[in-house]
């Protein structure tokens, strides 16, 4: 099944640093909960893995990520990821990510992401109707990790805006996709949604 995502995340990070992080695929991958780049195959091609834990069951996706396009002038990156797990699921994603500067505030930017995700096999069959919600949760976690990591990067004038001075610090959000956590977040957002509608 195919899910199309089109998201904008305003970040309190300047566009230059956000773009710098975006072009560092290994660092970007580590912002994705449960994901890591395991091997660089070429300048634009990587091997990666994603680990999903739902209760006692662990699904491990292995696959490749290719950079199809990387345009610094537009701060635009086009990626294609493909993967499969041994238990009979496969997924592919075409992602276009663009960093746009916030004209009102030079220290802020917007991360725009457009993705077409195709999932096959057990994930599509059993998780199909949760796909959009789960993707939203994962992306929210990703963006938070991305934001925090970007903030640790040195600014254009060489200084880091946070207290941390090390190049890359460990973000505080979970590194692994945890089924229970996703479930809990879904329940929370659902109740939140109800509450907001009433308010």
């Amino acid at each position: 099944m195919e899910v199309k995502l089109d998201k904008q995340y305003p970040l309190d990070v300047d566009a230059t640093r956000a773009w710098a992080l975006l072009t560092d695929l290994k660092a970007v991958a580590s912002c994705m909960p449960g994901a890591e780049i395991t091997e660089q195959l070429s300048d634009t091609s990587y091997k990666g893995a994603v680990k999903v834990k739902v209760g006692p069951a662990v699904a491990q996706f292995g696959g490749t990520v290719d950079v199809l396009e990387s345009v610094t002038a537009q701060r635009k990156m086009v990626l294609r990821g493909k993967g499969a797990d041994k238990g009979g699921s496969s997924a592919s994603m075409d992602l276009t990510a663009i960093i746009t500067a916030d004209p009102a505030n030079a220290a802020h930017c917007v991360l725009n992401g457009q993705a077409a995700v195709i999932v096959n096999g057990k994930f599509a069959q059993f998780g199909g109707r949760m796909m959009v919600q789960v993707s939203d949760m994962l992306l929210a976690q990703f963006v938070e990790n991305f934001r925090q990591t970007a903030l640790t990067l040195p600014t254009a004038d060489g200084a880091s805006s946070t207290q941390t001075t090390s190049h890359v610090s460990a973000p505080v959000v979970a590194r692994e996709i945890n089924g229970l956590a996703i479930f809990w977040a879904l329940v929370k957002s659902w109740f939140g949604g109800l509450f907001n509608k009433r308010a």
Partner: protein
Amino acid sequence: MNAPVQTVEARELALAGMGASRLRKEDARFIQGKGNYVDDIKMPGMLHMDIVRSPIAHGRIVKINKEAALAIPGVHAVLTADDLKPLKLHWMPTLAGDVAAVLADEKVHFQMQEVAIVIADDRYIAADAVEAVEVEYEELPVVMDPYAALLPGAPVIRDDLAGKTEGAHGKRDHHNHIFTWDAGDKSAADAAFAKAEVTVSQHMYYPRVHPCPLETCGCVASFDPVKGDLTTFITSQAPHIVRTVVSMLSGIPESKVRIVSPDIGGGFGNKVPIYPGYVCAIVSSIVLGRPVKWVEDRIENISSTGFARDYHMDGELAATADGKITGLRVNVVADHGAFDACADPTKFPAGMFHIVSGSYDIPAAHASVKGVYTNKAPGGVAYRCSFRVTEAVYLIERMVDVLAQKLGMDKAEIRAKNFVKKDQFPYKSAFGFEFDSGDYQTALDKVLKAVDYKGLRAEQKAKRADPNSPTLMGIGLVTFTEVVGAGPSKICDILGVGMFDSCEIRIHPTGSAIARMGTITQGQGHQTTYAQIIATELGIPSEVIQVEEGDTSTAPYGLGTYGSRSTPVAGAAIAMAARKIHAKARKIAAHMLEVSENDLDWEVDRFKVKGDDSKFKTMADVAWQAYHQPPDGMEPGLEAVHYYDPPNFTFPFGIYLCVVDIDRATGETKVRRFYALDDCGTRINPMIIEGQIHGGLTEGFAVAMGQQMPFDAQGNLLGNTLMDYFLPTFVETPHWETDHTVTPSPHHPLGAKGVAESPHVGSIPTFTSAVVDAFSHLGVTHLDMPHNAFRTWKALREHGAAL
């Protein structure tokens, strides 16, 4: 030995023969949990098989790595198509004249296709090992829509058929085209349309559904390497055909192959085909020399075994301005999945779809069915219906409603106007069927009166006039005719074997009996009803008649139980075998009473001398004599075998009426009333008939209101668990009212026509008729199934009827 003198009525009652609502003999063991199903069978040294299945719908197999699986302790073997190739068992013939991959050979054609098998010490190890088999695929474009499959540039689904322009049913004109099958007279139908005063047309989709029996499919195969014989316990509705096919595929002589269908937890057509799992279990047992059990789980059952329907249909009717139908045209695009594995009589690739003229006297008709390959699981089984009859009945009943709506006629009135009349039987339909008997008008009048049809229409009118009514009321009416009891072997065969059926009866010396048949019960209650036929025919109490089926080593060859054929075909075989015994018994009785045969009268359970009630011999007396001292020159014993080849099909019919109330706010459809009148000819056990009708109506309700197999564009089946797939329980099931008329079949020895499938076939269009009727004042002529709340709510919104 004579029993005390009793009245005729008392003796008749004691037999519990035909017409008695005898309690089911099967139930004692089932309700105590003492049935003996395939999964109950355990054999010494038995291994377990599980299947690696494709996660994608279409792709090339790049590599299969078995190492990790083989390294798991307790795993005995991992087999792929390459391992079956030397045995030439990686492909197998289907019942429809196509071939199907046993294990995916170089490519996978549908999601959940069998790719490899694992044999292990127990089910758990096997399941773990399945996870450990690594299969690398190269994905190919997927075709899920049969119309798209027929486009010129559509992806090729069946590489193995490259260059084959001739299929099992004639020319193939496209790489995804299986067959085009025509019935009726096209030019006559076209002529009727050319001069018609009124014509209507309607497109409708009969969704892909699955019979979903409670027990999934499976088998225990046991090859004895010393004796060289093979015993297989299997969930099959046709064990004898399985034996023939297994013998043909394996090369083991048929005499050394024993197929046993033990208790079967529902079949509904799903257990007619021969599945790769069976073949693999049998091969594994032969290779390993140990018994191998394979039982699929629910997801495997729904995803990969025989589905039903998936017909995209266009119907057209031509009629006079006053509603007399003059012509019918039907065009169907049939989605058969990746292999043509329909379970139809060989010469009928669309089964008995040409019953599509229904209960109506239509002078000119033509139907064309085009079978198409797509990236879905194979199947096309008769889900509680005689081959494709459900689709046909749905189409014609919908079309008659559409015509009535166009003409502003009442649906009961237009049906009565077009019925084949009682005095027209035997009636030859435009498609060539010879309807045996029927009396549709009497049955329709009975139903309309019972439900106060006029009152219902008045109520509906009042509701429609009230803009604040919380519900839309709909009345569905269907007057269907089925064709069952396949079939005359001059036209009906499966893999070349004529569709007769058989019975062997042995009367024991003390007057009890055993009967064996070529059919196999899956819930129909054969052990109960078959004994009743013999009881009436031979005057032996049904209580002492043992009925056995399903073991090919003991039962006579028969084609099995599906398509409501047990009573029309095997039931007739029982009567004919009993009559052979009766004829011999008469000779013995005449000898015992020292009179000529002509001086004897048969009365319930005895031969008596004409005019002298005190001189008689019961069947028990005769049986003793037959073994003890038969007349000079007569061979001892009292038994007979009969193979019955029916001269024609039987044509049961029914009138169903349904009243629904649709909640305008939620789209929920409440079935307020469902009245089902069935005419299945002579009734053998009214209680079992009623149970069959309740079951069939409930399955019909399931199909109409919720069952469907939803696929996404990538070929993922998004509803293959019982969380999604609708099986109604007591909570959802409406109250059923049943009724009957009796119009015996003139060509059947008992006059019986078969009933189990009528309620399924007849009820589905009745629900649609009712739901559409609720919308008809808004100009709606058709709504596709399933009529679940969401879809109905969308229709309410679309037509401005939502609250």
